[in-house]
């Protein structure tokens, strides 16, 4: 019994000492390896063979002396050497790493097996037990000391560094606000040169400096009225998004690129996702920073949806309810208008939605309600349908109803009415349009009997022209200083903005009562709700082409990437060249009917069908 035990002890001892030796050797090996790897790393880092200065200099020399064959040969040799050095050192570091790992592994295994072999029997700890109270006190003291040290270190950081970035930025932003517009405008022009849409938005060439002045004035005006501001997006940001019905300012122009031209909703070709929208609505989707917003309503329920553009997931959906002053009875609307026909808008800070019963609500981007109010049930026999639009941080609402038309601006942050201007017009269903003429920014509205322009900063009337009648549905189009207004059973007028405004031309062959016209600097495109399309010369009114699409069209055509995107009621997208000849780029079916104007984002189109929301893109 004793003997075997002894034997085992001896064997264990032998095994342990062997393991110890192996561990020591492996540890020394690992140490040497790590030194080698570090040296190799430093060498390669310093030499940076792929960006060799010598090689570059030699190639320079070769350019000045192209006949030097010896130099050429040298370059080739050095290039090969450099590449070899790079890949060899990579290989060395990698192999060294593996070797190091395995040698460390050997050390660990040896030490672990030693530990297992030499199991010691637990013994009594030497000395008495420390006083737990004393330990606690020490611990407590040092926690307190550490806390004090953290405070001292933070204070040192405060004294040693400049904590003035916030102040500097605020200062820069305040002085920068004045030059904001021109900066953004120029940036746009640089980015999209040759794109007529931008010119239309900025009012042609030479608008930069003037635009800056007027923006400065506007800033002051707005600043005087709204007490609490938290900024508004720059023109560049607005152009990079699709913040309202018919895009930035409601001009019908999208500045996005790489817009798809072919898809098929049935087969799923180029359909990135399709999401069912719980409640119906004829409002068109808007897009800001990868989020799509739209609203839906039934007779009893009203909701706002936020959808992730990448996945189509509904990020949040909020019920619009319990609004003070909201009528208990929903006004009667017709089927073609529904309870949620007005498009939403956003200033990049909040999103705004309005419903047929006059409920107006603002949410932040995470779906928290910021404010809400009821504007009073609109007296409207079809149902309120005018979309919202933003000017800086002002939310512009057209509220033309039976008996008392008005247009108002609400502070986006609080919902306070900043200005309200009453209008002596009949009910209209057209949406406000914000245009930049290069001299100033104007807010243009069309309603029986006239087209009126306001200063969006204070609501003062700038000019008006009696040229329209009936129940006005289409919003105006604008490009290059000319406003185009049209209505069914009335006429199409091209008005040149000026003092006084001048009627350039008019026509009554093609009259729309739902889709809005689309103007580029050169052409005016118009499609009637019965599906008859026409292209005029923007300045003279000469017809370039006419085409019968044979399907009703409710959505307004939008210009994107130099092409016209026109969606008919059956969901077929007609993509045309914005040109004087009728050229079809493609026709792509959605596989579902639609009455909503599409929205555009980089490389994608968002279309609201009768039931589903589609994202089209590769």
């Amino acid at each position, binding site marked *: 019994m004793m003997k075997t035990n002894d034997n085992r002890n001896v064997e264990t001892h032998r095994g342990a000492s062997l393991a110890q030796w192996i561990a020591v050797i492996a540890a020394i090996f690992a140490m040497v390896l*790590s030194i080698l790897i570090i040296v190799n*790393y430093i060498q390669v880092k310093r030499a940076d063979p792929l960006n060799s200065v010598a090689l570059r200099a030699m190639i320079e020399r070769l350019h000045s002396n192209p006949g030097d064959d010896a130099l050429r040969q040298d370059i080739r040799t050095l290039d090969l050497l450099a590449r070899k050095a790079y890949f060899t050192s990579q290989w060395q570091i990698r192999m060294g790493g*593996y070797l190091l790992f395995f040698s460390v592994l050997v050390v*660990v295994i040896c*030490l*672990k097996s030693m*530990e297992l072999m030499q199991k010691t029997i*637990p*013994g*009594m*700890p030497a000395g008495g*037990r420390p*006083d*737990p*109270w004393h*330990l*606690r006190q*020490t*611990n*407590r003291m*040092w*926690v*307190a000391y*550490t*806390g004090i040290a*953290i*405070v001292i270190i*933070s*204070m040192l*950081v*405060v004294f040693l560094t400049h*904590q*003035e*970035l*916030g102040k500097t*930025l605020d200062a*820069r*932003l305040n002085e*920068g606000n004045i*030059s*904001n517009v021109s*900066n*953004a405008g120029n*940036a746009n022009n*640089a*980015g999209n*040169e040759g794109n007529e849409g931008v010119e239309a938005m900025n009012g042609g060439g030479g608008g930069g400096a003037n635009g800056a002045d007027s923006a400065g004035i506007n800033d002051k005006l707005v600043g005087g009225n709204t007490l609490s501001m938290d*900024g508004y997006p*720059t023109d*560049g*940001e607005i152009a990079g998004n699709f913040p309202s019905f018919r895009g930035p300012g409601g001009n019908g122009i999208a500045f996005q*690129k*790489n817009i798809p031209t072919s898809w098929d909703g049935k087969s799923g070709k180029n359909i990135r996702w399709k999401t069912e929208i719980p409640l119906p609505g004829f409002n068109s989707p808007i897009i800001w*920073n990868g*989020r799509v917003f739209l609203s839906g309503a039934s007779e009893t329920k009203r909701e706002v949806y*936020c959808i*992730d553009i990448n*996945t189509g997931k509904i*990020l949040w959906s909020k019920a619009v309810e319990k609004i003070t002053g909201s009528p208990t009875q929903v006004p009667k609307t017709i089927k073609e208008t529904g309870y949620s026909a007005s498009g939403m808008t956003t200033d990049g800070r909040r999103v705004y939605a309005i419903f047929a019963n006059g409920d107006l609500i603002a949410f932040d981007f*995470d779906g928290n309600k910021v404010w809400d109010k009821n504007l009073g049930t609109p007296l409207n026999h079809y149902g309120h349908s005018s979309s919202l639009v933003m000017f800086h941080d002002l939310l512009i609402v057209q509220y033309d109803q039976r008996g008392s038309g008005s247009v108002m601006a609400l502070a986006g942050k609080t919902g306070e009415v900043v200005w309200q201007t009453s209008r002596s017009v009949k009910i209209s269903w057209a949406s406000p349009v914000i245009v930049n003429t290069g001299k100033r920014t104007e807010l243009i509205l069309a309603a029986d009997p006239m087209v009126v322009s306001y200063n969006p900063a204070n609501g003062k009337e700038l000019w008006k022209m009696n040229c329209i009648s009936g129940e006005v549905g289409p919003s105006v189009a604008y490009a290059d200083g000319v406003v185009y207004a049209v209505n069914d059973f009335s006429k199409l007028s091209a008005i040149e903005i000026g003092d006084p405004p001048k009627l350039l031309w008019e026509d009554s062959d093609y009259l729309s009562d739902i889709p809005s016209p689309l103007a580029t600097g050169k052409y005016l495109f118009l499609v009637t709700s019965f599906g008859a399309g026409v292209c005029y010369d923007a300045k003279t009114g000469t017809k370039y082409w006419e085409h019968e699409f044979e399907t009703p069209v409710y959505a307004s055509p939008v210009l994107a990437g130099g092409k016209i995107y026109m969606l008919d009621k059956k969901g077929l997208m007609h993509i045309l060249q914005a040109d004087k000849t009728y050229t079809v780029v493609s026709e792509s079916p959605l596989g579902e009917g639609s009455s909503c104007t599409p929205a555009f984002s980089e490389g994608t189109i968002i279309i609201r069908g009768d039931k589903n929301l589609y994202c089209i893109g590769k």
Partner: protein
Amino acid sequence: MSKPGKYPVRIPRKTLNRCFFMLLVLILTLQFQEVLGVQRFPRPEFESGYVQPETLQPSARSGVLAIVDVLILIISLAVVSWLVIKRRSRLLVFWFSLFSLVYFGFYRQGCICSIGAIQNVTLGIFDSTYIVPITVIAFFILPLVFTLFFGRTFCAGVCPFGAMQDLVSFKPQKLGARMNAILGLIPYIYLGLAVLYAATRSDFIICRYDPFVGIFRFDASFGMFLFAGALLISGIFIARPYCRFICPYGVLLNWVSRFSWKHLTITPSNCIQCRLCEDSCPYDAIDMPVTVKNPETKSATTRKFILICLLVPFFTLLGGFTTSRIHETLAKVNRKVALTNMLLETSNNKDQPESIDVTTFKSSGKPISQVYSEASLVLKQFYTGSWILGCFLGLVIGITLAYRMVMIYRTDYIPNKGTCFSCTRCVDYCPVERNNEGLTK
């Protein structure tokens, strides 16, 4: 994608060559401007029967495997909990931790891990566009749930970081009350910063300064390798330095584990105060019996305790105030703020060479005011965030101080439910057999 046959017209070779020539002239005169998505050169029509190669797009790791990971996580947690609570076997826990090291570490290369998942969950809460994959949520929640039931068994045998450090802890030393107090505050700071940076969409610092993931991948930056090496070498003497003094997930596990339902016990039956396990724990996680009386009088202790409790709000505010003073320094991690800083510096100091960021920003055509306003928004978030961070730290220090005032008298050796990793080392030291009958026999 496109096939040559799809073109409606066949362009004569001559026209093509003419186009080519014109385009070449254009290039040489550099009159060209970049237009995205426009084909400058038409695609050739080959006559030699050349077949265009496919553009290869190797796919990523299948999503099904991610679900397998979650299943393996659940099984591992269950197995380790069983080994710890029922089998009480150090050896089996050790072998299982090797499996976890190989699977979650070297095979899965440490991503996604529960520690890093804190940031995904935070980002998911604060950024409504970020959609947290369900597997990441599982990695965050499952260890917490298991800890609530069985103590930190996740640390014992599932976490590959713990397994790796456990392998090298050959000569663990006791650190003493002082070091434990100082270093023990780091995880709270780290957790606070990680949440702050994730919530402001700035960075995932836990992943960025993850020391062991580089070892799992055999690839990392030089600095991270140095950090890992330093941690492992110090790990020979200080057992599990990352787990105890860095790991932010450990903070959460510590809190949850304090209320665990069935925690590991040193003795399977009754403690006989033999003192054998006293030095067994390399993590200083065994609570000794408290039998001696508090040297201070009861009234003095009570007075002190009440004082500290009253001071807790003060600590909280002090922490918030102090940290909010350095919010700009903290915010420099954010890319937008960093870019703004660089832009301001280049505008102030024209001689300095521009960084790539400034150059690329200038070529992007974005208005500078947009960056400024974005950065000032981020700064405001950081101001609020650093107040909250500071308050949190102040509160932690205050509560720690108050907690250190009270002590429960006990006669037994028990593992500290918060800091114990359930590694079951102490179990082997206990001479008490599973049932008392064993002793009498």
